[in-house]
């Protein structure tokens, strides 16, 4: 493998509320080696070049969900975006997730997102005395949870959803509704009707207009729209 270097152009949203009167886009380029395969690798190089650029990152393998951002206009995880997938000669445009307050540069305040997530009681409710070892499920019942439990709460979906943009305080959003259905579908959960009752509102569940941006952007390939449809049934 050759270790040739190449230059990649970036356009990055910059905003430091302590210093900047308003946000601006910064043009910056970085030398990459062939081992810099993902966007996050390039961003780590950028950060070494200009350490004032701020973004969240942790696991760098699509599990923690902290490096979610708007990449060339589409929400995604920097660690999963392959550098070779970007068109050559065009700058890569990075912005914070839309619809949430910006703390600094690419870092957003996720309070509203987690508030909605917590509102659906994202834990198993079962009032029976706990068994000796664990609450068992049949393989078929467990199968129901596939495509639901894998959510990493990166907020790519909810911040791509126009209904969430207009009513982030009232609409639960795709991530929260996917989690809600994960517990509705769980045979070990005893609060199914309370959960459905809680969602039966023109805002909480029914603000979803099946736009399906959530399905389009989910870095884990999940389908919140389908889960929302099933909750309505």
């Amino acid at each position, binding site marked *: 493998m050759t270790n040739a270097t190449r230059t990649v152009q970036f356009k990055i949203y910059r905003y430091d509320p302590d210093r900047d009167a308003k946000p601006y886009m910064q043009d910056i380029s970085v030398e990459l080696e062939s081992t810099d395969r993902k966007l996050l690798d390039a961003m780590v190089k950028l950060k070494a070049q200009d350490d004032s650029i701020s973004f969240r990152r942790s696991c760098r393998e699509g599990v923690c969900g902290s490096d979610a951002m708007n990449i060339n206009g589409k929400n995604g995880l920097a660690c999963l975006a392959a550098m070779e997938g970007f068109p050559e000669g065009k700058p890569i445009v990075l912005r914070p997730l839309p619809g949430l307050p910006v703390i600094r540069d690419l870092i957003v305040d996720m309070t509203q997102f987690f508030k909605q997530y917590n509102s659906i009681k994202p834990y198993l409710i079962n009032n029976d005395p706990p068994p000796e070892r664990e609450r068992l499920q049949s393989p078929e019942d467990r199968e129901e949870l596939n495509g639901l439990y894998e959510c990493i709460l990166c907020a790519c979906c909810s911040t791509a959803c126009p*209904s969430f943009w*207009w*009513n982030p*305080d*009232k609409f639960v959003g795709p991530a929260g509704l996917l989690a809600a259905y994960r517990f509705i579908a769980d045979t070990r959960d005893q609060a199914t009707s309370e959960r459905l009752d*809680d*969602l*039966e*509102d*023109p*805002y*909480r*569940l*029914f*603000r979803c*207009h099946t736009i399906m941006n959530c399905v389009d952007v989910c870095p884990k390939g999940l389908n919140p729209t389908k889960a929302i449809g099933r909750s*309505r049934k």
Partner: protein
Amino acid sequence: MKRLVVGAHYGLMDWLAQRITAIIMAAYTVIMFAATLGGVTGSREVWHAFMANGFIRFITFLFIISLCYHAWVGVRDIWMDYVKPATIRVTLHVLTLLALVGYAGWAVQIIWRLP
């Protein structure tokens, strides 16, 4: 802290109604399209007799009611999404309702040729 009131418990009803009224409107469109192909718009007399038929009057009325309810849910959703100040929103809701009820009444007058 500002309290948020959610839990109005009419979400499912409206969602279902919107689907049902959509089916009614689609069925009516197919019937009318088929009738047009069948030549009911050939002359004024044929068209007049067709629309004077009790069943056609009934389904036309059903169509108008479905259209109004469907439009009510849809337009109300738009006001709910984009108009936040309560006074303006309620005014728009009332105006929408009045307009739709007015249209429905007007349609009834036309269908049954009321004076």
